[in-house]
């Protein structure tokens, strides 16, 4: 028990199955310290998974690093993938610890950090609370917010459509200073600032007289560059090419990377998927001034949507 310190702690069972799995993973480790780390990480993840199941929140344990024996051995991670949301880090603490260790390899690419007190003697766990972000290797437990706030946080990430700025492509063609500053504020940059010259592959052949901008898109632990090329056509129609390119010295786009253009009402107009052999993907559409569309980019459970108005 937690001496009444954490009034919103939630006591949950540690099942025999969880204990067996955690011990089997720990048995792979050659030192007692590493074995304990892996055992506690696994228990924290499995208890959180059980809680998510009670709350009707889907999980994908096989897609989590904490389920991968190589990652268990090399890193100190306790992530639980929540499809459509992202990776939730489930950090274990032992009874009476007042600080939780948050290893640097988990500082990015997480939708939150839930802290689980694991009492191996009583075979009980307590979900002590959560924080949405972390930048330090130690988290004082007094900073934790309640499990109820975790639920709201996950729901917002899953369902609430974030009010996204519409990127106005016609303004790119007009190229006023104010619009230029607006574009930079939205994350759009010159192509050369996002892609190095070696990443600008031979396939990268844009048209003359077109305006193009690029944006770095982060999908979990991977990133790609979205390049948008706009050319004014006749009768106020614009031709738009959208390309995805690898970044960070990767020769090809990651396999399974999906790209789709959606209408304003969310219907897919055209889509493409990388198999791991492509150094870029391209989709093209035409549209009239004022028309809206969005580009959805997905990799595993991560997704990014960019909305445009022509």
């Amino acid at each position, binding site marked *: 028990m937690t001496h009444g310190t954490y009034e919103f702690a939630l006591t949950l069972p540690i099942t025999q199955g969880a204990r067996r799995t955690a011990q089997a993973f720990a048995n792979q480790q050659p030192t007692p310290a590493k074995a304990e780390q892996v055992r506690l990480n696994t228990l924290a993840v499995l208890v959180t998974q059980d809680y998510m199941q009670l*709350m009707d929140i889907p999980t994908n344990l096989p897609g989590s690093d904490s389920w991968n024996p190589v990652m268990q051995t090399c890193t100190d991670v306790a992530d639980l993938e929540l499809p459509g949301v992202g990776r939730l880090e489930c950090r274990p603490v032992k009874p009476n610890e007042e600080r939780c260790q948050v290893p640097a390899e988990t500082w990015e690419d997480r939708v939150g950090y839930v802290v689980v007190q694991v009492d191996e003697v009583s075979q009980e766990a307590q979900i002590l609370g959560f924080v949405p972000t972390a930048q330090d290797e130690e988290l004082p437990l007094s900073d934790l917010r309640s499990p109820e706030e975790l639920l709201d946080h996950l729901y917002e990430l899953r369902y609430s459509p974030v009010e996204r700025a519409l990127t106005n492509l016609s303004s790119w063609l007009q190229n006023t200073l104010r619009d230029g500053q607006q574009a930079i504020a939205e994350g759009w940059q010159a192509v050369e600032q996002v892609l190095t010259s070696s990443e600008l592959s031979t396939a990268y052949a844009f048209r003359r007289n077109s305006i193009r901008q690029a944006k770095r898109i982060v999908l979990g632990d991977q990133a790609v560059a979205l390049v948008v090329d706009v050319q004014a056509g006749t009768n106020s129609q614009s031709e738009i090419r959208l390309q995805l390119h690898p970044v960070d010295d990767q020769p090809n786009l990651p396999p399974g990377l999906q790209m789709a253009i959606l209408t304003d009402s969310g219907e897919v107009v055209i889509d493409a998927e990388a198999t791991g052999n492509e150094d870029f993907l391209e989709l093209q559409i035409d549209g009239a001034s004022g028309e809206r569309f969005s580009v959805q980019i997905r990799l595993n459970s991560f997704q990014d949507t960019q909305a445009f108005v022509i």
Partner: protein
Amino acid sequence: MSDLDIQLREWVAEACRYPPGSPARQRYLTKVIRVVSNKLWRESVAYYQDALQQTWVYFCKNICGGYDPDLGSVATWLNAYLKRRLQDFYIDTQKRRNNEISSWQDKDGEVVDITEGLADERGDVEPVWEKVKAWAEADPDGELQRLHIEGHPEVTCQVLILRRLLSETSWKALSEEYGVAIPTLSSFYRRQCMPRLRKFGESEGYVTS
């Protein structure tokens, strides 16, 4: 009826006003679990936590529609279910005790498989960490030695993978040794080393993604 029971009835009624999976229902169910968990029947048998988990699953699935507050408190309703599950586990372990030869039970009734721990499921002899170490040292593609933190050719993927293996060297120690800030080290590790480790895991058949 106690004040607490009245409070629980209100929370249950609130939870059931919202659809499954909605944050409002989740929030009220969580409140009920937090309070009722202190009022449930306890037994010191190995399968107790399993029976309890099944009880919580039953609670979340059936509280709206399956529970009649006029017939008793939430705790009474759940205790009845929990005791039935404990009884099932008891009968089940008795059966197994009589039938199985390769298993035995400790005094609490926990089933212990004596074949467990002799080898992992893949029948491997070489532990995972030794495989990773051998792969990182050999660096068959030369990639791990080539990729390094900008401005620090000595801090390569290979160095970081080997030093972080089994979490032996702390980020703080690495930061001091190489004069590179922890976020720079860990960000490089996450972007460059972890995807390659995952890929190695897949190629060794550890992951089925």
